[in-house]
């Protein structure tokens, strides 16, 4: 059995440190699954390439083929890694707009690993104070460790940061990956509800049977 993990990245630059973190978290989850004898594949959803389509979809309800494939990748994945840059103390607008397109219960019960990037470590709590409530609302099952990477975390070697004693990025990514895999294996494959099955038969509704 191969698990499917969707990696959503809302980085705006090319190349993007948000994408780097997303890849890092994806690799950590993959390595952990491999170590436990499981197979998995990552599917990266890069929101930057669909920014215009996401805006138009919110205005008109019409999704491009690419966007509609991306939303179904995320809602059908067995686990989701969601990574955003932190702007003005919270996730980016693009990140939120994408999740606004997903159906009401579509991530309920889905294991999610959160990651965020910013220019300075001063934004680190945004991942817990802003991103985590969004996924609480969506009733996703969020891994306890969320990984925040400031620009200088990408320059840290294998020891704790000298200024705040936080474990280095690689170590935090591995811990987060382990936690996500714990949740994923505990819950198993996601069973996706077919939207077209979401109705009550009229026999039942009108009490004729």
């Amino acid at each position: 059995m191969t698990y499917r993990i969707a990696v959503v990245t809302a980085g705006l630059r090319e190349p993007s440190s948000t994408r780097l973190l997303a890849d890092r978290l994806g690799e950590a989850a993959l390595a952990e699954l491999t170590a436990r004898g499981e197979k998995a594949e990552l599917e990266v959803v890069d929101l930057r390439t669909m920014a215009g389509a996401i805006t138009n979809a919110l205005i008109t309800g019409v999704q491009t083929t690419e966007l509609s494939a991306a939303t179904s990748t995320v809602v059908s994945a067995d686990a989701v890694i969601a990574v955003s840059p932190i702007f003005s103390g919270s996730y980016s607008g693009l990140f939120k707009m994408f999740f606004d397109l997903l159906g009401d219960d579509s991530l309920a019960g889905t294991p999610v690993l959160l990651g965020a990037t910013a220019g300075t470590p001063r934004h680190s709590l945004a991942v817990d104070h802003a991103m985590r409530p969004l996924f609480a609302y969506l009733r996703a099952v969020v891994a306890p460790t969320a990984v925040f990477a400031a620009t200088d975390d990408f320059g840290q070697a294998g020891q704790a940061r000298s200024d705040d004693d936080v474990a280095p990025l690689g170590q935090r990514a591995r811990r987060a990956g382990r936690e996500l895999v714990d949740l994923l294996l505990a819950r198993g494959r996601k069973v996706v509800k077919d939207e077209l099955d979401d109705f009550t038969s009229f026999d039942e509704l009108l009490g004729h049977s």
Partner: protein
Amino acid sequence: MQFGIFTVSDITADPTTGRTPTEHERIQAVVAIAKKAEEVGLDVFALGEHHNPPFFSSSPTTTLAYIAAQTERIILSTATTLITTNDPVKIAEDYAMLQHLAGGRVDLMMGRGNTGPVYPWFGQDIRNGIALAVENYALLHRLWREDVVNWEGKFRTPLQSFTSTPRPLDGVPPFVWHGSIRSPQIAEQAAYYGDGFFHNNIFWNIEHTAQMVALYRERFEHYGHGKADEAIVGLGGQVYMHKDSQQAVREFRPYFDVAPVYGHGPSLEDFTAQTPLTVGSPQEVVDRYATMREHVGDYQRQLFLMDHAGLPLATVLKQLDMLGEEVVPALRKEFAVGRPAHVPEAPTHASLVAAAGGSRDATVYAEGDDVTGASPDASRDDEVAVTP
């Protein structure tokens, strides 16, 4: 196969002149458009219902009755009738009345409405949208079929000994379509009753439309109304034409770019690729719409949105000329090719009367006079009894 137009009754500024028509001008324009639709050989004119600006059409039966008086052949319908916030009793009365005045040239399309505040304005709660559609339609269905209704439900006061008048013309209720874009519950509702299902796909890709129609067809067969390919399906559409297709794009783009709902969003090119909107020559419209049945099967009704986004009346009338003279005749031919004989046409008043075994007078004659509620005979008896 029926072809027609539907209007949402929006009052929108013409972006090329900056001028917004008055309500009165727009109302008169829609009447002219309906008459034109009949003149160019279309089968159906359908009018929306809204209860907020920029729309004028709060009273569809008034408008449709006025149009009925000035037309002879075209079927008058709705797009849509709000089954959620209207009292089903009033729908039963109003549309039976319209049916009599229009000589049976009436059907309806039920919809839930997509303007949140309309629910509280009419004393309802949007969270009950589906439940209202289910209960209200179940009552409406009975009011047209049972002379005396005793009923109790969740959303309106109970009815005891209620007779909705006038009774449906010739004893045959108007045919009903159920419009829904993304609620399987409404496709199920249409299937349960053996009613029509209309997918107004003007903002949707054809793959989604195909799924919804397939669900309706499957459930139609499940409820024993016929085979799946005998279910009654309608689709929306939207076109703008010029014999030179580049000129069509040049003329329509200013309206598209700032149109209500989809304006300021996707490009005209993206939107035409993703939705049924077709801007080009009449032949391009024919080619595009001829492919619809490959996705949804042979269907019964195709309605086009022609008059929104501030397009001036003169332009709309010219569009209708092209639609009626060039597009619809060609599509009628296309759709006739290979259409299995058992696939029915959309029901009309005449076909429903025939299916019911002929017309009958459905009048419910009251036993008593309308002042005292007592029978004239009974009161005479009383007089006899009390007068020595």
